[in-house]
């Protein structure tokens, strides 16, 4: 604490000296000793007052008073432990919710990416104007990549695969399934990650059919290769081929892909590069500026020969611009996280309304204390200060507990999220989150302290001293208003989470189109040179599925490129070859399957036939389409017997199955036009490309639970190929959960917050009624004495709570009409104004209101009229 230089004793000595001088002067003028001393004092005035003024002007005074106020505040809070605990709990829960959600916002949007000079990193957005405008991150094709790489000198550019894929790595005698990221030559330069051992990929290694090289991630290097310091230039067996290890990434280094190891992407214009399959990141070179870079990108890409953006969008203008990488990476989660933050803000407001109500009552109860202090000479400012200090104390304690709650909530939340759901490695509680929690605490104390402080300003001394009862008829109106406000916000949250729950239920109960009971699946990587040969591929599938069928209890086995609920391969340019649609080119999902695929999953074949062992590489090329395909491309006419791609005959039509969309992602789970082809008719060229992207699944249907099923499946696969590990085993339920992960997380978080809001509102109503009961004990006693029944008294007391809640419900529903419209993009299968949801909201709120008003009024039954009348 700051301390003034001069001591009070020194000041007193000076005054003493003054009085002596003055006395001496007066003595000289002929006054008697006694007269002189009295006159000196008289002309000086009040010594004590002067000394007080000296003291008060010092800074010690402030400190002393603050300490005193704090001590007094703590005593008051300790004495009202019920009040204090309620307030601290309310604060802790609401601040905890806000802290947890804010730490997500912080990690996703505010923290810099963990790379050097993250402000110079970007990705490229495509802005399309015209009838269907958009502005988003597009993937690049091979042509775009080459133009970007060769004609944009302002940027260091790099591309990668859009996700990791599974591959088999031989480490010692064991083959492991690891996640590989495929990256172009300067990818690690854009991220500014120098390897700890070796080097990054050279441009020569990144050319199509270039040398095979790999960079190991730090943990793979440690776990699979024992942190061998001489690993560089050694050869490892990856995808069944020798790869030179050229580098090891540093510990803790992350990339947007977060793979176990990296190989060169080797992008070209053919194959993978023929479509938009590459994710792009860039870094501004030293000395260059963004405008220049954007101009170069637009110039470079105007040279493209094919412009897919303009298909089906006549009159559109296409431009490209750089967007901070942070934004590009988190765009997907941004709306969800901001919605959650908004919900958390609602919680805070609701908490504030409750706390304002509680403190208002408390201040009213203390009217006589205030009056007494005023009459003893305390200034109004001192009284106000006391209240604010108590609020601040509460807010700080609540804030500290709240950060603890937030930390726990965040841990729980991160456990709830599926792996690799967030594009960031850590969600820390850093200084910014702490600062946020502190700010929110202080803000809360101001918000909930303001009303009571205003209300206590006009305490009338005389009337408050005289009566012992609590003032504040007007305060009831105010508290009802607060309750109505918080109930309104709760209604909005209830409706929003109700809609999300209904959406999730809708998606989870969509008719799947197959029978998921008793199905176990497993994935393995066939991105392996041994299986590029169609004969070897056919042999593997035939032998492994046959071996699995030998497992006791297993009824059917099959394999396929993908499963229901999953995303699958999209093939464009499928030509319809006959009939009135002849010549039309269409886009559809394509899945290769073994003959028993439909039987194993119990997908009905509605027309024609299923595949059989007879559909081989040398027989008529065949396909089975689903209903959606037939409806969309053959206008519902019989598809069986029609031809696509010149010589492929459609031999059957299968039912639709629910799947993750690839062609038109309007819903997280949908039916898409699909074409199934026999695995046995796949060509070498297709196999090598498909398996880079997709890991096929083995499907086993058992009649009941089978002991050690997964181990037996792995053994069966090993009998066909000893060096092929399964990456994991999934029930269909697991796959559904994975596809709907975003919706599940959204529902879980929003429901938790809504429950909190409902709880807080219930507490608010409860406190209001309990307080009325306490205040009106005497009045109720009189009513009972005059013949009112207990029920009537309960209704009389509970009515203000019900009225406030009803008003809140109405206001909330009005708010909903505007607020819910913003949700339409995340709702599936239900409308924004969903009657069952709104009715449930009203019912839930009614029930909670009834409980919260009835419980405190039960106390009325215990009121003894005779006793209450004797009091006072």
């Amino acid at each position, binding site marked *: 604490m700051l301390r003034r230089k001069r001591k009070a004793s020194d000041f007193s000595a*000076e*005054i003493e*000296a*003054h009085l002596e*001088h*003055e006395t001496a*002067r007066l003595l000289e003028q002929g006054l008697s000793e006694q007269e002189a001393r009295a006159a000196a004092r008289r*002309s000086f005035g009040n*010594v004590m007052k*002067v000394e007080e003024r000296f003291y008060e002007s010092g800074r010690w005074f402030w400190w002393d008073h603050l300490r005193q106020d704090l001590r007094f505040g703590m005593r008051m809070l300790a004495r009202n432990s019920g009040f204090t605990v309620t307030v601290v709990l309310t604060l802790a829960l609401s601040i905890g919710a806000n802290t947890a959600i804010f730490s997500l916002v912080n990690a996703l949007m505010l923290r810099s990416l963990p790379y050097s000079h993250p402000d110079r990193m970007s990705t490229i957005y495509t802005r399309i104007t015209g009838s269907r405008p958009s502005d988003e991150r597009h993937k690049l094709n091979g042509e775009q990549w080459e133009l970007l790489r060769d004609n944009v000198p302002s940027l260091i550019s790099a591309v990668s695969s859009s996700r990791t894929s599974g591959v088999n790595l031989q480490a010692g005698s064991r083959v492991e399934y690891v996640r590989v990221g495929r990256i172009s030559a300067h990818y690690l330069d854009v991220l500014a990650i120098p390897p700890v051992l070796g080097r990054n990929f050279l441009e020569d290694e990144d050319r199509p059919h270039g040398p095979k090289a790999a960079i190991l991630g730090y943990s793979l290097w440690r776990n699979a290769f024992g942190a061998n310091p001489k690993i560089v230039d050694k050869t490892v067996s990856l995808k069944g081929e020798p790869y030179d290890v050229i580098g090891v990434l540093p510990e803790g280094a992350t990339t947007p892909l977060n793979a176990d190891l990296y190989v060169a992407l080797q992008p070209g214009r053919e194959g993978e590069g023929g479509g938009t399959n590459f994710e792009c990141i860039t870094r501004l070179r030293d000395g260059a500026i963004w405008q220049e870079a954007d101009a170069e990108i637009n110039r470079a890409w105007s040279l493209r020969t094919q412009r897919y953006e303009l298909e089906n969008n006549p009159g559109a203008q296409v431009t490209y611009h750089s967007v901070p990488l942070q934004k590009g990476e988190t765009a997907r989660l941004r709306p969800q996280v901001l919605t959650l933050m908004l919900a958390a803000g609602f919680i805070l407001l609701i908490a504030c309304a409750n706390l304002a109500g509680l403190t208002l009552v408390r201040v009213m109860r203390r009217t006589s204390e205030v009056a007494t202090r005023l009459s003893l000479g305390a200034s109004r400012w001192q009284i106000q200060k006391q209240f604010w200090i108590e609020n601040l104390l509460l807010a700080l304690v609540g804030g500290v507990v709240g950060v603890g709650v937030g930390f726990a909530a965040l841990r729980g939340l991160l456990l709830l999220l599926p792996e690799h759901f967030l594009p960031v490695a850590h969600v820390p509680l850093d200084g910014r989150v702490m600062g946020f929690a502190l700010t929110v605490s202080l803000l809360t104390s101001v918000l909930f302290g303001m009303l009571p402080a205003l209300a206590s300003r006009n305490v009338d001394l005389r009337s408050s001293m005289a009566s012992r009862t609590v003032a504040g008829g007007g305060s009831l109106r105010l508290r009802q208003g607060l309750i109505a406000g918080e109930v309104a916000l709760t209604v909005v949250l209830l409706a929003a989470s109700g809609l999300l729950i209904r959406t999730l239920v809708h998606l989870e109960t969509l008719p799947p189109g197959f029978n998921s009971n008793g199905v176990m699946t497993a994935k393995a990587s066939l991105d392996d040179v041994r299986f590029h040969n169609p004969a070897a591929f056919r042999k593997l599938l035939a032998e492994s599925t046959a071996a699995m069928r030998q497992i006791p209890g297993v009824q059917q086995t099959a394999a396929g490129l993908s499963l229901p609920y999953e995303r699958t391969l999209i093939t464009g340019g499928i030509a319809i070859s006959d009939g009135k649609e002849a010549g039309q080119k269409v886009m559809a999902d394509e899945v290769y399957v073994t003959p028993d695929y439909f039987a194993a999953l119990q997908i009905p074949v509605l027309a024609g036939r299923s595949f059989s062992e007879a559909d081989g590489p040398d027989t008529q090329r065949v396909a089975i389409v689903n209903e959606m395909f037939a409806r969309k491309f053959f206008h519902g006419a019989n598809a069986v017997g029609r031809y696509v791609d010149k010589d492929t005959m459609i031999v059957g039509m299968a039912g639709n199955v629910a799947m993750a969309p690839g062609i038109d992602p309007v819903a997280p789970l949908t039916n898409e036009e699909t074409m199934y082809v026999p695995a046995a008719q796949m060509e070498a060229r297709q196999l090598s490309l498909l398996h880079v992207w997709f890991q096929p699944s083995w499907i086993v249907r058992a009649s009941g639970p089978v002991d050690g099923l997964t181990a037996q499946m792995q053994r069966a696969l090993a009998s066909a190929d000893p060096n092929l590990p399964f990456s994991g085993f999934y029930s269909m339920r697991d796959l559904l959960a994975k596809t709907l992960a975003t919706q599940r997380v959204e529902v879980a978080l929003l429901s938790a917050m809504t429950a909190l809001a409902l709880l807080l509102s219930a507490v608010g109503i409860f406190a209001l009624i309990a307080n009325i009961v306490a205040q009106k004990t005497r009045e109720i006693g009189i009513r009972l004495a005059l013949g009112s029944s207990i029920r009537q008294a309960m209704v009389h007391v509970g009515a203000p709570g019900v009225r406030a809640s009803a008003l809140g419900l109405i206001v909330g529903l009005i708010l909903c009409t505007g607020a819910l419209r913003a949700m339409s993009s995340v709702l599936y299968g239900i409308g924004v104004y969903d009657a069952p949801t709104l009715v449930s909201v009203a019912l839930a709120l009614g029930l909670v209101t009834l409980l919260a008003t009835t419980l405190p009024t039960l106390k009325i039954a215990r009121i003894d009229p005779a006793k209450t009348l004797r009091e006072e």
Partner: protein
Amino acid sequence: MSTQETGERLELLQGTLDLLILRTLIFGSQHGQGIARAIQQTSEEELLVEHGALYPALQRLEERGWISAKWGISSNNRKARFYSLTAAGRKQLVKETAKWKRLATAIGRILDPAKEG
């Protein structure tokens, strides 16, 4: 000048005490009682200075750095705290004096416009 009712002294206007203290110290260092006497005598006993009010004012001026103080022995051999003007105090005095004169002239014009001609 307005006439003075007998037996009643003029109360100091808010803020003028600081100016008077600074002005008094221009003749050299002085202790509190001396300053109080000087103000009363030079104003020909017109101004009422409650001696007690002087000390908080002195303290304030000292904290602002316009005057400095140290303990010494007065002419009649008593201990006293002597105040003297600092350079900043001198500047402040010039500024305040000018301000006060302007104020006095302006008020004079309003109260007695005829005399100004």
